[in-house]
């Protein structure tokens, strides 16, 4: 195992990794659907590859709570990121073939838990907090050189959370959540009265800020956090509201380059059930359906990607992780150990029931 600027805990966690990898690893059949999520399992933090039946195919120990992943599917590898304000990342082979590589941001940065690979697999880009500078950046890591950090781009805002790559394979879309934090104060929000979230489009080759769109001033406390591309390549986002308790602003939005942000509230009862919090956003396999989960409300809400119409909701207590499964179907995981197939049509099919000793799945589930 190689490492750059990682601490002893990461090293120790990864030393245990090999013993937990199943013989033959997680290779799976060609084209088999595999999913990746972070979880807490029996007091230990892990990244786990599971199949559509919810079976473990690969388990990687993590030193602390993980969050989301960057996935380089053609090269069968992924990077697990620490949950904010964590400072560890681990690159690993999805098939378990190669030894994991741990790396960390420089001392004055921490991860926000999300990142993407460039299509050629050469670079990994991760959202990070430049907390002394009170600005967000995407750190650039050279995957061909042990994930050495080779630079960074400004994201044009504070608190960048999720970053995705547009269909052109070059333009990044960053959700600048707008919330200022500093690791000295853990997760305390330092700028709620003045926060200003935005969607920023950044050229991954030059770092140029190509376009930035804000919300209306009265929605300046609506933190844009999670992103997904629909089947037509439009950006959808899920937000978390930081304003007063009784207010119920829309939490789901769509953006087409060059236009204003569109917001979708859905029925009032559904909006209320989301409890001002969207923890994850995904689509179905074709990108026709957008799903937004609220672990606080214990529901997933489905939206027609073409029209923005709300298609209904499904209950899953502490459910948050969502990933495409099929046409109008998604796989969802919960903090109570449940794994279900869900979608706007028909019911929710249980694959794994919640149980006190079942792994508690973190916010995000990714399809590899």
């Amino acid at each position: 195992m190689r490492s750059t600027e990682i601490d002893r805990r990461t090293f120790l966690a990864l030393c245990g990794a090999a013993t937990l990898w199943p013989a033959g690893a997680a290779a799976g059949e060609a084209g088999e659907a595999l999913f990746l999520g972070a979880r807490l399992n029996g007091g230990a933090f892990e990244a786990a590859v599971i199949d559509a039946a919810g079976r473990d195919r690969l388990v990687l120990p993590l030193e602390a709570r993980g969050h989301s992943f960057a996935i380089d599917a053609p090269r069968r590898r992924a990077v697990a990121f620490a949950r904010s304000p964590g400072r560890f990342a681990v690159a690993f082979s999805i098939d378990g073939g190669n030894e994991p590589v741990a790396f960390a941001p420089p001392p004055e940065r921490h991860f926000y838990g999300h990142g993407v690979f460039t299509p050629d697999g050469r670079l990994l880009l991760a959202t990070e907090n430049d907390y002394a500078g009170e600005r967000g950046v995407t750190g650039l890591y050279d995957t061909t050189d042990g994930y050495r950090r080779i630079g960074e781009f400004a994201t044009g805002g504070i608190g960048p959370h999720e970053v995705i790559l547009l269909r052109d394979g070059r333009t990044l879309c960053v959700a600048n959540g707008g919330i200022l934090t500093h690791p000295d104060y853990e997760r305390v929000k330092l700028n709620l009265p003045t926060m200003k979230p935005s969607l920023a489009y950044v050229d991954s080759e030059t770092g140029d800020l190509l376009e930035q769109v804000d919300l209306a001033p009265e929605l300046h406390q609506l933190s844009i956090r999670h992103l997904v591309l629909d089947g037509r390549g439009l950006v959808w986002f899920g937000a978390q509201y930081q304003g007063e308790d009784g207010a119920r602003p829309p939490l789901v939005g769509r953006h087409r380059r060059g236009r204003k942000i569109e917001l979708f509230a859905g029925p009032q009862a559904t909006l209320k059930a989301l409890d001002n919090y969207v923890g994850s956003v995904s689509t179905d396999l074709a990108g026709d359906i957008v799903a937004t989960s609220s672990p606080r409300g214990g529901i997933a809400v489905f939206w027609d990607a073409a029209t923005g119409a709300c298609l209904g909701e499904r209950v899953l207590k502490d459910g948050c992780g969502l990933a495409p499964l099929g046409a109008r179907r998604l796989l969802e995981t919960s903090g109570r150990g449940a794994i279900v197939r869900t979608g706007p049509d028909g019911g929710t099919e249980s694959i794994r029931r919640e149980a006190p000793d079942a792994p508690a799945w973190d916010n995000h589930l990714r399809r590899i």
Partner: protein
Amino acid sequence: MHARIFLCIIALVLAAPIAARAEEAIAPDIGVRVVRDYVSPTLRAFSQTSGRLKGTLDDLCRDPSPSALEAARIAFAETVGNWGHVSVLRFGPLAEGNRFERVFFWPDPRGVTLRQVQGLLGSKDALPADIAAESVALQGLPALDYVLFGTGAEKLGAAGGDERRCRYGAAVAGNVAGIAEALIGAWGEGTAFHAAFTAPAADRDPYRSVGEVAAEIVKAAGTALQFTRNAELLPALGDAPQKANGRRAPFWRSRQSFAFAAAQLDGVKQLVEAAGFVEGPSDTVNGYGRGVVFDVGHARDALLAVAGKPEEAFAEEEDRARIAYAAVAMEGAKHMLNGELSGALGLVMGFNALDGD
């Protein structure tokens, strides 16, 4: 570490089945009790002391003297203490319109308050007509801490005084008193919030059940413990004595840092008691509630025992130990609150429902 020992004992003694039904573990009049026994007296006291603070500053501006300055400083300390109680109620009316930040812009790692207050005091421009329309850092108690105790504050009580500084201070005090009044109004009978909090129902917002009211109270208490520990004490404590910096604690100039934190802990204790988590319908809840109150009380006492002034105490061995002990006890209390106590109340704090992910 008494707190840890107590936690272990509690865990052993109370390893009984949790309340079968949440409704049985939560006092049906939980919201009424909290309003009657905690919210109303706390807001009233805050309104009274902040009103008195405004009065003492008006007196000081009218007739500067060392005794008038001293009176204002005493009123400030009382107001800070009462704010410590109110600050625990960081939901509903206090979360609206940035009221919390307008009274208490904290944490402030880059010293925005100092920079803006010094800028305003040093400017030749007229004072803002409406301080409530200015930056939140200029509006609240940390700004007043500098006005009354920062460099040049002595001049406020000298012959001739410092008119600009005094008038600005009086405006800030008036703003805080106004927010206190607004809070009383927003919590008052007849408001939608009061109705939902004291008589939650399916068609009311934001509370549809007593469980949601209980969850709000548990969350508020836990948030207050976390904020006091992580945003007020630990940054000043640092990892080692040489990294300690008491000037990173709130109200270090007025030397109210520890009294303020103790007041917040006292507020948590009173809130938990008012909610019926100590002498309520469920013995299991009461057991955990006593554990929380035990730890919070010890943390408060440890902070009140700090001997040095905040600028120095964080770096001095004995006081450091007191503060570190308080931090451990607060963490223990928070874990019991969000873990065992919440479970016994039938509340499940979701693994994924944490803020900011």
